[in-house]
């Protein structure tokens, strides 16, 4: 599977927001979405190479013109340095999921075959359960989680998407 496949221009938008690391910045950004009735599907916030700044990767669903307004409103925030919509661009997209499933010793071989196919790692294994860690793009994670659904899924945690522009392009 090509893990870096291109996101296509559907209703889900992936925004990369580079912000000054100041108190309240996350609340301001969340309000821009909430005020317009948009739901944030995933949100990843982390520090950057520059200590005073953070990077947020936000995915949200919505029709294009409404989201364009959201982007302009985000750019208007004093603490937002820049905001780029990577939807439809050829960028590297990754996400990680931890999948905890009830797997008996008899079922284990099949579960491990699924894990192997998706290059997932077994990060916890007990008599009755296992936790798989899988990374990749959203489609890949969805596919593995679907297959693991034949066992009883106990818990699922996904990190949400992170993106990075390729080559000389800035994220």
């Amino acid at each position, binding site marked *: 599977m090509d893990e870096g496949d291109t996101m296509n221009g559907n209703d889900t938008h992936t925004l990369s927001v580079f*912000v*000054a690391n100041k*108190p*309240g910045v996350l*609340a*301001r950004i969340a*309000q821009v979405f909430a*005020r317009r009735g948009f739901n944030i599907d995933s949100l990843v916030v982390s520090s950057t190479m520059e200590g005073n*700044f953070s990077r947020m990767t936000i995915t949200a669903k919505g029709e294009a*013109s409404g989201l*364009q*307004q959201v982007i*302009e*409103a985000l*750019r*208007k*925030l*004093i*603490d*937002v*340095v*820049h905001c780029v919509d990577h939807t439809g661009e050829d960028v590297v997209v990754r996400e990680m999921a931890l999948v905890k499933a009830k797997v008996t010793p008899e079922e284990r071989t099949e579960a491990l075959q699924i894990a192997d196919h998706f290059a997932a790692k077994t990060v916890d294994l007990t008599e009755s359960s296992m936790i798989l860690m899988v990374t990749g793009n959203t489609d890949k994670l969805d596919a593995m989680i679907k297959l693991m659904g034949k066992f009883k899924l106990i818990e699922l945690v996904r990190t949400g998407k992170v993106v990075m522009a390729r080559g000389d392009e800035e994220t």
Partner: protein
Amino acid sequence: MPTEKIDGAQALVKCLEREGIEYMFGLSGGSAIPIFDALVTTNTKIKFVLVRHEQGAAHMADGYARATGKPACVLVTSGPGATNTLTGVMTAHMDSVPMIVVTGQSVSWMLGKDAFQEADIFGITMPVVKHSYLVKKTNDIPRIVREAYHIATTGRPGPVLIDLPKDVSSGPCTVDLFQEMDLPGYKPYPAKIDKEKIVEIAEALSKSRKPVLLVGHGVIISDACAQVKALAEKLGAPVVNTLLGKGGFPETHKLSLGMLGMHGTAYATKAVVECDLIMSIGSRFDDRIIGQPDKFCKNATKIHIDVDPSEIGKMIKPDIHVIGDARAVLDELNKHVTRLDTREWLDHLEGYKKKYALHYKKQGGLKMQHIMDELYKMTGGKAVAVTDVGQHQMWAAQFWKTDGRHDWLSSGGAGTMGYGFPAAIGAQLGRPKDLVVVFCGDGGFQMTMPELATACLHKLPIKIIVLNNHYLGMVRQWQELFYDDRKSGVDLEGNPDFAKLAEAYQNAKGFTLKRPADVKKILARALEYNDGPCVINAEVVKTENVFPMIPAGRPLEDMLVEPPKAQMEKPTGST
């Protein structure tokens, strides 16, 4: 390093003074005591005006800013003191008015612990400020004040809040009071104006035979008035203005058609309906002026000039747009435009001006329009006109032709009742030599009426004209037109005698105006009294309606010039 030992509150006051703040409006309280103390100990030149309610303070700062073009400061305490400013802050935010709001706060180690008079004002105000600060270190104060002033006054202006915990304002400030700003994400203006777009606009204009220029608040903020006048005259293009654009282009100019939109002049609205090109300069195509967005100027070329990129395409998708300060954009555009052949168009509109001239009857009871019209004639329009919100506001917008850049103050976006009177106080303090008149309804005036004490104390010769119809008139009008005249929650029975009320204050004078024949006489007496405020209680007819009117959410084509003969359907648009 400062030569003397100062605390955070003193640093705050000194920094605000250095930024050029002249007035501070506010009301004291526990968490703000160190700041109030600093007003004394620093011997500051900033003049402090004690209000009677914090909402008044915010509107005064707003009125001062709109009347002078300079920001003022609001200083209040934590908790209820801070939340009371909220309506005023939201009003300023909606109308892009610069303001610095300083709120006292509980000591920082009590934040989030429900301390006495603790409110998360930083969180509460977030959607209605341009930016805000919760100050955690005393030494950050000089930088934050500088940033706050810069953010409030540049680009698209707006209110900036500084929340100052008591321990931070009382702690020692050990840094130089001149600090660099740290605003890597703030870009108030584009790096450069897109000159190709300017040429494109000039080309579109050159092809137009029926152009309209739409002047908004941005023209006033960026002081592009001379540029707009030059452009309109060079092109021979008629000009319409928004409610907040009044004064951006002289409404007495022969190319002016006055205000467009829901209660604008019929000829302004008709010009917009029939034009082949509309160019907005510093307006945001507000829902009051476009009616139904997808039917707005369907066959016309739409051009949008705005300093705020988020306004482009928000309501109307323009054919051409330029991001930039109105003055800078027009300076460039004016180099490229030539006279258009608009004679036929102007003649056509002149016909509309005659056919649909604004009118009212002086018989059949006292009319708000009569009073406004008469006062306008008596003063030559040489006054700062302030309004509250409602029917009187719309009539004032129609009848009070505004020529000066800072001579019209009205709450547009927010539509805040109670705005007018305190805003007039701010305006009068900022322009002590000029005549300030405020038109209020009996509803709105009672919302911030306690500021009479403030106006009296400072002997401000404001002419307060209470257009008293004993109703919340605009809502009553809607109920009459769209809800089978079922009046609900609009009857203001129990109003006091406003003239008598004025006399209860020192330095104020009250007048009662009941008959159309007395308008001139009473107004003349009010204009003669300048030792304090005048309150003119004008008992006007109770059920006059404002026309023209475009029902909310309907296209401009559906404008009613006269009262409708039959009951109307309920409007679909917002309020």
